[in-house]
């Protein structure tokens, strides 16, 4: 297991290097630079800025400078947020995003899995349609609509919860953003669970179990649940990485200081160093998540072993 883990991590290095290279040059193809703002800069001043950030050097030289710094663990200072290094920004935002994203994912699993199982067992009945219809409402309304509505109703009109703000992760501040973030995931997970449950329930293996005279509840709990969870498990890796890094809308609307916004704002502001930081971070997160998922997968499914 350990050697497998190490091997996977070692394999990730060349991948990451290519990812970094692609991202670096793609970013520079985009028109506009980090200093293009509403108020145009006089040429002398722009030249000063370019020199201060080494942007006046040839691109290949900048590329190797970046790689060299990266090798020393230095992601450089952000162009936009000048007082912080990229590492600081990501490390300060990540726990926040992890907290929001992790809770949202737990909530989504807690609601989505049972919904999916119920829908599968009552397939093509009114219950199925009602459950899936409700879950689907989560996908059908974009979250930039759901989030402000939640803030407006529960924060402003009813005044039950803060309309926004992080407040160091106080519980009342967490509730609305976590709900808003989980709604789409509930729908996805319910759909997936329903499909995989239907497939498992139709397998020979379950038929055998039924033939042995087990009750339906025993069949579901003892035999169907574990294999039916496999597709959801493999979905979770990328999904967690996605929910941690992709919550920009929720962050904006609820004022959550997470890292999701850096993925969007970094690219929009041409904050070259911040973009590269997010790319490296995301790549590492994906590698890690996929690894964890594979390990969980092997625990759930005894047929799979990672020895080599």
């Amino acid at each position, binding site marked *: 297991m350990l050697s497998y883990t190490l091997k996977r991590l070692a394999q990730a290095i060349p991948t990451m290097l290519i990812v970094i290279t*692609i991202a670096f040059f*793609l970013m520079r193809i*985009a*028109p506009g630079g980090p200093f293009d703002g509403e108020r145009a800069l006089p040429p002398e001043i722009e030249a000063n800025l370019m020199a201060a950030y080494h942007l006046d050097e040839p691109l290949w030289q900048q590329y190797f400078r970046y790689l060299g710094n990266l090798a020393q663990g230095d992601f450089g200072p952000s162009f936009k947020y000048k007082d912080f290094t990229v590492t600081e920004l990501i490390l300060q935002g990540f726990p926040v995003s992890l907290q929001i994203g992790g809770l949202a994912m737990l909530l989504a699993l807690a609601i989505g899995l049972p919904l999916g199982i119920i829908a599968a067992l009552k397939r093509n009945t009114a219950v199925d349609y009602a459950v899936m219809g409700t879950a689907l409402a989560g*996908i059908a309304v*974009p979250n930039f609509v759901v989030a402000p509505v939640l803030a407006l109703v529960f924060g402003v009109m009813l005044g039950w919860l803060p309309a926004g703000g992080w407040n160091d992760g106080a519980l009342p501040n967490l509730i609305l953003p976590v709900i808003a973030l989980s709604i789409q995931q509930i729908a996805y997970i319910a759909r997936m669970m329903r499909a995989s449950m*239907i497939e498992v329930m*139709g397998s020979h293996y379950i038929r055998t179990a039924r033939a042995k005279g087990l009750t339906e509840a025993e069949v579901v709990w003892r035999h169907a649940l574990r294999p039916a969870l496999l597709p959801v498990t493999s979905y979770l890796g990328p999904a967690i990485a996605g929910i941690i890094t992709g919550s920009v809308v929720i962050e904006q609307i609820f004022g959550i200081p997470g890292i999701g916004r850096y993925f969007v704002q970094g690219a929009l502001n041409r904050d070259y160093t911040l973009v590269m930081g*997010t790319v490296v971070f995301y*790549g590492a997160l994906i590698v890690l998540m996929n690894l964890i998922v594979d390990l969980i997968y092997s625990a759930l499914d005894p047929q799979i072993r990672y020895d080599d």
Partner: protein
Amino acid sequence: MTTDTLAPSAPAGDSLGRDAWRRLTQNRAAMVSLWLLGAMTLACFIGPWLTPWGLADVDWNAFDVGPTLEGGHWLGTDANGRDLLTRTLYGGQVSLSVALVATFVSLIIGVLYGAISGYVGGRLDNLMMRFVDIMYSLPFMFLVILLMVVFGRNIFLIYAAIGAVEWLDMARIVRGQTLALKQREFVEAAHALGVKDGKIVTRHLIPNAIGPVIVYVTLTVPKVILLESFLSFLGLGVQEPLTSWGVLISEGADMMQTSPWMLLVPSVFLALTLFCLNFLGDGLRDALDPKTR
């Protein structure tokens, strides 16, 4: 649960299609969805001819007006005094075609890539899948935003580009199918008969992997529609005077308290479409998967 028991994996060919169609027609939710989708598409592409206003016509006397019958703005106007019904229908044209373009591009690339990778196998397979891994490790938003910025002016180019990013899952699915099918007798038979590799891939492998692919398509279309709306929220949507459901919804979300119709009208169209696509997708999955009964 229906009753046909112990069906061996269905053989390739017409009988599968006909069988699947029969199963699909029995699925009420899927059929209703299919009809609704058809009606919606028809409305979007023919409807604008029937409304009294054009896409960019400004009614200088009716900025931001709620639904009325007298003024001819049956579903109200937007902040610029343009007829909302007309714009929602035009927006539907853009949203639907954009989704189809992106899905189609991802379909072509994904299916070919996956089939080749799975069929050839060995080192090429390894290399091709490593490339897929690399693409997966790039944050999706980063790629999409850069594509939007670089191709900024042409909406269809952008979505072709998005399709060119969306194909990864498709390639994985098709590769998996191909790997499984490759071992089967009819492929080996074709091999033995000296059929060329290219022909085996296009004639035998791809048609047999089509079931999961179709299902995946019905999932990709809503995904792209939502992505389009998210990009519109970021202000990276289609160019005026063209519009899309995403653009209309994000405009409406700003005005939800003062002019709720601006949010509700396009949202209803979008939600209905996504609902239908999802139920249709589930129906197709059930109908095409020979293992489920």
